[in-house]
């Protein structure tokens, strides 16, 4: 009897304990303030030097911070880890940067030594992605604990806009790893393969737990320098206690999760087909943002037939960008007439040739036919007959009398990017209107890049840059003859001494108006020779769940940015009270 009563008392105690637990988990606890973000794929690494995939970079952008970042409204450089804009000394060609009193996530201060160490590490190991941006920095000196000075070998326009927006890493965590890597036969490989389970950063969050294949949990960095600071007229948080990254392998599941309150934001561009469903749902809101992106068709200009600019221009006439944008991208893109997107108003050149824009299909074929006929191309049955009507042509014959061989338009697979895969098939049909024997060939992205960038084994391809920097230095990277090498960014193999000279000069021009003039000239040359045909710049379509968090910061490339993460606020009353307290 006594035992029974004891058992009952024990059960009651357990019940009361559970009740407390449940009540304790009510509004205002950490779950309520947890921001749940959906990712399409799992991040591949937490090693900042290895992270080349977009998901790893998204996560690491909340941990590691740069000296400067871009203002979300004006897109001008604003101090981030730095306390003020850099001071340039033209005599010594050096920039002096003062640091904020920031701390790493372990509580130790971010010092000039950390900055010097980061630059030295990148230069010593020649870390891919970063080395080219620091290559011309001859020397980095820590003037004092919070002041650092960069000495450049020559004036470089990209130093402010590209170099200083790179991340700074803590010396205390990376110095032992670098030292260990240097003692191996392949130091760079050792550095890239270093396992960093809990990266130490100065950003708003740190990794709490990563259960691979399931989720990634980040919690607040109590030492974040930006807490309650006002930068670019924005008071920074972060206001979410933690971030839970959930992995959704398909967009359909992620969209369903958004609609059903299972996730607050899906950090991935959404296909236009989902928009109606999302707009019709009371829990979700769609954000449409401009992007600084370039989707284009490239040619291998190293050898015939595409070494001839006439045939490249003819292809430009045949490609109906309006059709692609209206139908394949459902209107959520802007046509491009230059390598620099028109949204980048300062650097975009006006008055460039707009091949075929506004023309009918038959006018396009006639214009391309005229161009090629003048260039010495012939047909057994031309695409335009004697009566001036467009007819189905025979295979085109090159100026040397040989019929053009079959060639492929390489694209990423539909699984990776349905728009580009569809563009490949559509362009193939348009090229056949002129007797060009093209066939679309989607292939896995890795194999595609290897074939185009490393082996140069291709004729044409369709690729894109989803996030072009605002600085137009990529023009130099894409088309300078020095980059025409295996693994180099000049994938087309374009070589033009006049362009090279302009590119070199623009890289050194410190006067923005002079540089703008040079960049405009570079765009004119490229659009006359068309080693790349720019196709479209898509709109970033993103969606959030509006029930739990608000105040997302929209800027170029969407709402997935450090400003949003530092500003987004919980909606519930209790959570708001917690923030106020």
């Amino acid at each position: 009897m006594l035992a029974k009563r004891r058992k009952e008392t024990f059960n009651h105690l357990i019940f009361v304990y559970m009740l407390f637990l449940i009540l304790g988990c009510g509004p205002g606890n950490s779950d309520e303030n947890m921001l749940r973000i959906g990712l399409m794929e799992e991040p591949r690494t937490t090693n900042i030097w290895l992270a080349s995939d977009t998901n790893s970079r998204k996560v690491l952008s909340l941990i590691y911070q740069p000296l400067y970042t871009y203002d979300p409204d004006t897109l001008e450089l604003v101090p981030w880890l730095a306390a003020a804009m850099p001071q340039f000394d033209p005599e010594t060609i050096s920039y002096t940067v003062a640091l904020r009193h920031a701390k790493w996530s372990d509580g130790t201060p971010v010092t000039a030594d950390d900055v010097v160490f980061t630059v030295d590490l990148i230069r010593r190991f020649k870390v891919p992605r970063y080395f080219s941006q620091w290559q011309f920095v001859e020397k980095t000196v820590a003037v004092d604990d919070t002041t650092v000075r960069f000495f450049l070998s020559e004036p470089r326009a990209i130093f402010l806009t590209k170099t200083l927006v790179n991340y700074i890493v803590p010396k205390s965590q990376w110095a032992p790893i670098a030292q260990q890597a240097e003692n191996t036969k392949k130091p760079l490989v050792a550095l890239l393969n270093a396992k960093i389970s809990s990266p130490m950063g100065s950003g708003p969050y740190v990794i709490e737990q990563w259960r691979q294949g399931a989720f990634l949990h980040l919690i607040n960095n109590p030492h974040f320098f930006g807490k309650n600071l006002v930068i670019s007229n924005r008071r920074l948080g972060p206001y979410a206690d933690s971030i839970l990254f959930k992995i959704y392998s398909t967009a359909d599941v992620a969209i369903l999760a958004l609609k059903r309150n299972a996730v607050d934001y899906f950090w991935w561009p959404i296909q236009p087909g989902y928009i109606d469903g999302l707009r019709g749902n009371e829990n979700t809101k769609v954000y449409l943002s401009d992007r600084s992106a370039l989707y284009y068709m490239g040619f291998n200009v190293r050898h015939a037939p595409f070494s001839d600019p006439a045939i490249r221009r003819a292809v430009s006439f045949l490609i109906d960008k309006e059709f692609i944008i209206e139908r394949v991208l459902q209107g959520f893109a802007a046509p491009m007439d230059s390598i620099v997107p028109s949204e980048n108003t300062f650097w975009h050149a006006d008055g460039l040739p707009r091949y075929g824009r506004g023309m009918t299909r038959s006018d396009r074929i006639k214009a391309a036919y005229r161009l090629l006929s003048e260039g010495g191309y012939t047909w057994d049955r031309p695409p335009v007959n004697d009566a001036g009507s467009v007819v189905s042509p025979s295979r085109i014959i090159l100026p040397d009398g040989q019929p053009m061989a079959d060639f492929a338009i390489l694209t990423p697979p539909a699984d990776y990017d349905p728009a580009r895969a569809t563009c490949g098939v559509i362009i193939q049909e348009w090229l056949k209107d002129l007797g060009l024997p093209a066939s679309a060939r989607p292939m896995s992205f890795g194999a595609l890049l290897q074939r185009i960038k490393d082996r140069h084994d291709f004729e044409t391809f369709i690729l894109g840059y989803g996030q072009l920097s605002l600085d137009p230095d990529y023009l130099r990277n894409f088309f300078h003859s020095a980059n025409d090498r295996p693994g180099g960014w000049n994938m087309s193999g374009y070589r033009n001494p006049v362009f090279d000279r302009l590119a070199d000069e623009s890289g050194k021009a410190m006067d923005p108006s002079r540089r703008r003039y040079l960049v405009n000239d570079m765009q004119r040359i490229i659009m006359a020779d068309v080693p790349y045909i720019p196709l479209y710049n898509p709109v970033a379509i993103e969606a959030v769940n509006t029930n739990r968090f608000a105040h997302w910061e929209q800027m170029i490339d969407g709402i997935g940015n450090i400003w949003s993460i530092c500003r987004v606020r919980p909606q519930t009353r209790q959570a708001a009270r917690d923030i106020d307290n």
Partner: protein
Amino acid sequence: MQSKTETGKHERHSYRAKLLIDAWRLFHDNLIGRIGVCLLIVFGLMALLSYIPPHVDPMYHPMTGVDPEISYASPPSTRHWLGTDNIGRDILSQLLTGARVAFLVGISSAFISIVIGTLIGIVAAYWGKMLDGLLMRFADMVMVMPSLLVILLLSVLFGQLSIWTIVILIALFRWPAVARVIRSQTLSLKQRPFIDMARVAGASHLRIIFRHILPNVLPMALLYMTFRITSAIIVEAALSFLGFGDPNTVSWGMMLQWVWKTGHMFQAPYWLLPPGLCISFMTLSFYMMGRAMEEVLDPRLRRVRNAKHAAA
């Protein structure tokens, strides 16, 4: 003498005709078989009709034709009986072309796998010993390979595969089961007196195989062909749905991939359902036909059914 031979030939022909008529009667009596054939006739008509729409108007071309006034996924209308996809292409034209592609993939790859499987099965059983062991171990190796995964890997390595490469690859992974069945049939046939007689009469190995063994295993091979067609259609649809199909071919799997990847899965049932249903019903029709053929070829199955009928 000559008239005797002619009479013999005539008797053989009429015997074969009787066998065929009996087989057809048995098949016709089978409800499952009848449904299967009806469905197949519908799909056959769809495949034949697929040539017509592009001639009516270029906008009905399944791959390149677009409605000049519609540039979004639109529901069924008088102009587009099953609606349009997101680019403005006619879904009905795509569906009809998909039937043609399904027949092409299914029948071609099944035929190739049956030819390979039958030849290997007969050769292994006829010559036996070490050759039999080698061929059967090889068949075992191919049989346990995950075909879809291997084809996916090949596609990743060598870029998107053309429809004919996909047909051949499916065939190369689907012959071992056929080879095993044909081998066991041949082993049994090999012991029969008529083979011994042919051998004693001086018939060559090739003659024995092609004149005496092959005709006897052919019905079984044809039965297996119906099941191979089903699996070939499913493999091609799966490949296309996952984004590894031939981008220049409009197949039902490809249609499903388009509706999925463009985000219309839950927005456009008129686009999602037709290819999905067609894949299901076409594979079902071949499966039903196979089941009915199995009963025709195997009297034991017939006896079971008849016994059940009698008991009822």
